[in-house]
């Protein structure tokens, strides 16, 4: 982390380049010598910067965005209704399709809540496997984030490095469950299968490789002069506003609020693992991007400890039928997903199917903050701010 701080604060020499950087960030100042009128520009739903099917109407005054009207729902499948017509087990694969960049964590949040509802104990080995694959998933998701953040500022080279590492994680996931994107790996009461022979050793080898790449790519992307000029100080958000508009996850922590469910409402075996909650200060574009790099390092720490501690034993609780009837009641469970607080609120009426499943997707809450965050900024910075919120539309629309 100290290395990152160093990069951020280091001066970049501009001698001989003929660049004047003193006039920067004067968005909102009106110039009287140019006649302009407000324009409404349609953005999306199919747009390369939209990270999915997002449509917004940007009202712009010259280069300055004065108003943003997000329009969502293009990917709405009403999973909450589908869940009412499936048994508890049958709904697990659907959760994969919400935040499809971090399916493992969706699986986890759902099975965790059902286990809470039905009072099922999970074997210890299964909990450790969940922590390891969950943190690998967080790394994979953050790598995708850093890739897209780079590409949006024109930095295409880090793409290759980040996606190469992500590919290794997908190979590891293919080893545990056979799938590379939508895993359906977690089961109510454990996971579907034990880890293959030598998988933990492969993971250790991967972590060493990733540590090296992260050091390199931090210099390549987060220390890049153009990237820093485009990101530092742009579209900041105060902690107070972030809470007011319901941000969670890395974006909220980038504003300095140490809200991490792994510490605030500990689940699984996280209390036995030593790690830090990463925070930053300004919640500007750069903080929202670089905090992901910090979190990748913390996830690596967590995985290393989990591999040290993992015991032998069963990976699935015994005696749980495929179709079962939890007692009537309600339960809420949540995990710290890649994008924030992913929660499930399940109401049971004592039958084989849930009476109601409410999904609290972090992207939905985060996207809502975009207008408050970005109005008054330059158009180009708004696109970056939208990118740094790391929204996945499978989860917004559900």
């Amino acid at each position, binding site marked *: 982390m100290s290395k990152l701080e160093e990069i951020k604060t280091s001066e970049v020499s501009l001698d001989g380049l003929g660049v004047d950087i003193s006039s920067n960030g004067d968005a909102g100042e009106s110039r009287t010598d140019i006649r302009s009128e407000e324009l409404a520009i349609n953005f999306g739903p199919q747009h390369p910067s939209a990270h999915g099917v997002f449509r917004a109407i940007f009202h712009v005054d010259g280069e300055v965005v004065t108003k943003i009207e997000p329009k969502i*729902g293009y990917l709405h499948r*009403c999973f909450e*209704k589908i869940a009412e017509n499936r048994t508890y087990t049958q709904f697990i694969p659907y959760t994969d399709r919400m935040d499809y960049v971090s399916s493992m964590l969706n699986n986890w949040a759902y099975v965790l809540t059902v286990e809470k509802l039905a009072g099922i104990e999970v074997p210890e080995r299964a909990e450790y496997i969940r922590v390891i694959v969950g943190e690998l998933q967080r790394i994979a998701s953050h790598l995708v984030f850093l890739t897209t953040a780079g590409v949006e500022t024109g930095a295409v080279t880090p793409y290759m490095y980040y996606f190469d590492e992500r590919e290794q994680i997908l190979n590891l996931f293919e080893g545990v469950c056979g799938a590379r994107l939508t895993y359906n790996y977690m089961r109510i009461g454990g996971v579907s299968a034990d880890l293959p022979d030598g998988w933990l050793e492969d993971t250790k080898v991967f972590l060493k490789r990733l540590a090296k790449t992260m050091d390199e790519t931090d210099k390549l992307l987060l220390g890049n002069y153009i990237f820093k000029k485009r990101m530092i100080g742009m579209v900041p958000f105060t902690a107070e506003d972030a809470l007011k508009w319901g941000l969670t996850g890395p974006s909220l922590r980038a504003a300095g609020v140490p809200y991490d469910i792994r510490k605030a409402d500990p689940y699984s075996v996280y209390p036995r693992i030593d790690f830090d909650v990463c925070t930053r200060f300004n919640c500007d574009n750069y903080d929202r991007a670089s905090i992901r790099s910090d979190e990748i390092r913390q996830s690596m720490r967590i995985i290393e400890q989990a591999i040290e501690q993992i015991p032998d034993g069963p990976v699935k609780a015994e005696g749980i039928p495929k179709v079962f009837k939890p007692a009537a009641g*309600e339960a*809420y469970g949540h995990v710290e997903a890649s994008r924030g607080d992913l929660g499930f*609120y399940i109401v049971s009426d004592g039958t084989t199917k849930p009476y109601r499943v409410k999904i*609290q997707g972090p992207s939905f809450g985060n996207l*809502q903050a975009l207008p*408050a965050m970005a109005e008054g900024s330059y158009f180009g910075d708004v696109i970056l701010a939208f990118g740094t919120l790391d929204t996945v539309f499978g989860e917004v629309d559900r």
Partner: protein
Amino acid sequence: MNEEFNLEKQEKEMPEQGKIVLEDGLGYALSVERKDLLKAASGLKEAGFDLFQFVAGVDYPDSIKLTYRVFSSKRKNQIAVFLKTEVPKDDPTVDSLVSIWPAADWHERETFDLLGVDFVGHPNMSRIFMPGDWVGYPLRKDYADDRIIVMDDGKKEKPAAKVEKAEAVETAPEKVPEAHQEQVQEAEDAKTDS
């Protein structure tokens, strides 16, 4: 404000808001009448609950139960409270909490869209996921749509009508449509040529 959340102390601080109880599966929960919702919510906001997380509506035969989750970042022990209320089916209206937590905006719109609960005082009470001209509220239990597939839970016997249909498909003779027969012939000719 930066102190641990304490139930007894909380009750002394906000006696009008009702009693916060510890519920199984949820945690701290506060149930209030519909008319007291706004008052209870502002009480919670004053008590340091600053992050609005979601509102979930559950459709029951006579009423729709609403469950809000609000979280306090200011408390040392980082605590959340579920705020619960109930609205009758024949008059599904309730005060909007947007004035207290702006983040409630989209969440209330979602509940309006899918369950038909009207939040009074919301600045833009319109559908958020479904098209604007959609009829009905999908998450209501009486919402009918042929496209909803109810999966079998494996406990019941399969309906007789479906079995008949399956047999009918099996007995039907395989037939290439006339329009395609030429293409099939051509493909076969090409094979023999090579």
